[in-house]
């Protein structure tokens, strides 16, 4: 696969990195309900149940573990987003910065389901994985959050940043025969891929 193949204009798929501010919010013992109320009060958002994610005006939230959610906002100064979430969760839960710890990778295009089916065991058919669906699973052998972003379809893959390049390379290889273009993240976010290209 050459670089020109990946960037041909008729590419059916796009893979790109989404710079995000991320904080893992974990409820303290027996305080999940009060934490949910506090988050609703601060961000106007209901923390989603298992298998779901929600978008808000300021913050998105994805269920990620029992009593744990990944909160997400626009890129901001180091630590600022975590501090915002921590303030809302004061005494009820821990907010841990993951802005550099997780990468959010978008796969968009009609063949996206076929590409994901090559290394994700989940049923991503619209009947089984509709709007608002999210799951923690394995993609390309690494732990990964998967969520349906829109009906294109577009999927967000949330992966440990140290595995981001591995996952992007897998996505590009699995997408190659459909035609795919890759967009690294804009600065100042550190791209998972070196400037010279992935391979």
């Amino acid at each position, binding site marked *: 696969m050459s670089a020109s193949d990946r960037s041909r204009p008729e590419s059916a798929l796009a893979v790109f990195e989404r710079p995000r501010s991320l904080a893992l919010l974990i409820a303290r013992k027996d305080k999940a309900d009060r934490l949910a109320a506090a988050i609703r009060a601060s961000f106007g958002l209901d923390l989603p149940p298992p298998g779901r994610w929600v978008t808000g005006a300021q913050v998105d939230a994805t269920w990620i573990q029992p009593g744990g959610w990944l909160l997400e906002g626009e890129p901001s100064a*180091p630590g600022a987003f975590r501090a915002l979430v921590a303030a809302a969760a004061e005494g009820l839960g*821990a907010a*841990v*910065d993951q*802005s*550099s710890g997780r990468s959010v990778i978008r796969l968009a295009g009609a063949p996206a389901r076929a590409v994901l089916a*090559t290394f994700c065991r989940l049923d991503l*058919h619209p009947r*089984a994985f509709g709007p608002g669906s999210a799951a923690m699973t394995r993609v390309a052998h690494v732990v990964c959050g998967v969520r349906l972003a829109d009906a294109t379809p577009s999927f967000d893959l949330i992966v440990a940043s140290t595995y981001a390049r591995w996952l992007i390379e897998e996505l590009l*290889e699995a997408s190659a025969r459909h035609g795919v273009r890759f967009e690294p993240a804009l600065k100042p976010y550190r791209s998972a891929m070196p400037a010279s290209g992935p391979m």
Partner: protein
Amino acid sequence: MSGYRLPHGGFIDRSRRLAFRFDGKLLEGHPGDTLASALIANGVKLVGRSFKYHRPRGILTAGAEEPNALVELGEEGRAEPNSKATEVELFDGLVARSQNRWPSLAFDLMAINGLAGKMISAGFYYKTFMWPAAFWEKLYEPLIRRAAGLGRATYATDPDTYEAVNDHCDVLVVGSGPAGLAAARAAGGAGARVILCERDSLLGGALLLAPAVEGWRQEMIAALETMPDVTVLKRANVFGYYDHNCLGAIEKLSDGAPGAGEPRQRYRVIRAKQVVLAPGATERLIAFPGNDRPGVMMAGAALVYLRRFGVAAGRSAVVFTNNDSAYATARGLKDAGLERVTVIDARPTGPQAPGLAVRLASEVAGFDGRRVEVRRRGGGANAETIEADLLCVSGGWNPNVDLASQSGARTAWSAELASPIPGAPVQAERSAGAARGLSGIGAAARDGLTAGREAARLAGFAGAADFPLPEDEPPALAVEPLWEVRGRGKSFVDLQHDVTADDIRLAHREGFSHIEHAKRYTTHNMATDQGKIGGLVGAAILAEARGETPDAVGLPTFRPYTAPVAFGAFAGRATGDRFEPIRRTALHDWHIRHETVMQRAGAWMRPFYYPRAGEDAWTAILREARMVRSGVGLCDVSTLGKIDVQGPDAAAFLDRLYANAMTTLSVGRARYGLMLREDGIVFDDGTVSRLGLEHFVMTTTTGEAAAVLEHMDFHAQTVWPELDLTFCSVTDEWAQISVAGPRSRDTLMKIVAGLDLSNAAFPFMAVGEGMIGAIPARIFRISFSGELAYEVAAPSCFAEQIWEAILEAGRAFAIAPYGLEAMGVLRIEKGHPAGHELGGFTTAADLGLGRIVKKAGDFVGRILAERPAMADPRRPRLSGIRPADKAHRLRGGAHLVTEPTSSESLGHVTSVTRSVELEQWIGLALIEEAESWRGKRLWAVSPLHDERVEVIVTSPRFVDPENARVRV
């Protein structure tokens, strides 16, 4: 030459010709042919030699049950042995070779094995080649391997690509005969997501042999094509049925035209809510002398060649049967214009067969390839000989129960068919049509419709689609079980493994009477065809020998795979660089840009050393280690596991988790932490830093990071659920850089703002937060090297900026990066236990860490660490060793003994390196009665290297035993 192409008929494109080679000879066929049909059309009768006796063999079947026509396909990396010619779709330029013949197919010197048959009967390799034992490896095994066996695998790299895919559906239908098509349409019409798998290149199964219902077949296919949620997969064989309704299939995509960009094969893992199994039935063999001769063909297969490929398999035929189905073959052959067609029916009465020559109550007692010996049932003197080059055989039909059986359903016995049929389902599956013993297209289609509706209903789709079905055929006469016609000569029950009826009886006589024992003793059913045509025949012969009925004897367990699967298909894309995930630190690109030698450590890529021009590995490593001892160096330690722990009970939790006390740790301080397993053995070590009253960050070793987090989750969730705390991995969030050496403070003071790094304000084991430029960083004054040292942690997206800032700040002190191996030199000199010392067999005391273990309060591993053997003072303890002669080297794994020839080991060497302080090899070792050996001499022997080195036992702390340097 006997087979030939008929002037018309068949699903082939006669307007186009495809050229192919078989054993070098150029032949032609048509699109739609298989290699087998094209070979028969070209008059090729001999296609292979048998496994053991090297008997000549011809094409016996038209499908996956083929035991004889195994060929090697392709060349170089695409060479594929043991391909069934009956399953290979012809393409232009196909190259096939026969197998297991030497020097040539027609003249095979190994055929003498057939004459020596008495010597190589069943189980011969257990008996004949037993003595002397030394001969096995050098003489017998190579001899047997040359004489027996099938094709040869290639060593060349496969140039094609494969893909693995996960599929999901409400209803999976296996097989596209009348039952399968009806089931798929019924389920699809009800609104279910359906996958229909057909192993053939055409849909229809038995419908392809029934011109009268061709219209129905086409209408059904057209209807399925209009359903968006029905996926029809051709050339897709379902090879296994596993737990939780998970099935495996191989879809052949470009076997015909390799290298066209598509994957060659796709491995599909199908998770289905409901399954309809409609794989049809397989015709079974009858054992009689010469039933393996070229010219013998299953009666159903002969009909397939006629109807599907427009090929007559011979010019003069005898059809030997015990049931009605073979009459269609006889009729077809006669209509195709064969010179003579004679039906030999074992039953006293047969169906109406106007115009056919039929001998009732007769049997075939022998065949030599040209003449069929026919006699009255049960023998007698009135045998006659009929000239024929084609002998069609039908011993009845066995429903294909293998997938149902793999799913866990026990088989039931059908006396009517004299065959196993699928029993009560265990998983969410049902069989339909011929696969559960029904005969006739109409009956199968109706059964499929019912099964498809039921499967859809159970999957939550109640809508009832309706469509016309073919009419039922008149009922057939009963099959009369006939397993064997005894006579002189070899009667085979397993053609691929050359197992005869006599072999089965021999197994019984020698005590291998259980069906599973007989299978293994004779290798019956163990070839790639898995005994599809002869398995039940062998079982019935065993039953007769045991004086029982076949249903009492049963069949061996059915296991995946129903047909062989290429390893490449399982691997999919996961080959070479893509075999397993690679984990990269945030500084990976910097390392690569600076031509660092990288080392794989688990999933991680870690910098091993940073060679300068002209430096070999050791030169670079020792330079890096000296740099840290004398100046300053920096090292990427981001791979260390990092866990953020928060909450009011965080301190209490860590106190129970670690063997040493943590509640006493002050805010702004770090402490070494030692973790035990429940059994008292050392599990992991690292540091714990208290960032706030209720906030800690702990580190783990790189290798155990995931295991430690799991250990914590287990204890938090199940052992101490009353504790109020939260924790999560922050390994990926924080890049961590070690800055080590006497000039490390001078270096960091230049760039760290907002934190006083002076020794008084920030002593050894202090922790604080500061700014490096605009980047917030955590500074830990901890040391792995034994020198004044710090670790700097920053959000990993800023890793390169921080790294470059430190490099710039340390330029005046000749700072440079050091890698994993120099770190190893430094920690061994310092006597820090790591990898091999923490290998899952050492206690805290073994490592000299007994003094830090809490005397009061509970912690994981406390109770079991107190067992007498764990606390035994004679246990091997950590020590240092160095060769008495400075010129000698040490080896990890060497044993320590008192005399060079002694075999009484006192312990072993765990880690070795070249010390920059002592300028000689040093090592860490675990030695019994270690204290008493201090200062004395032992021998480190490594029989693997044939080395014996005299060593002096020392303290494990080769450098700064008072630990003064870290405090300056």
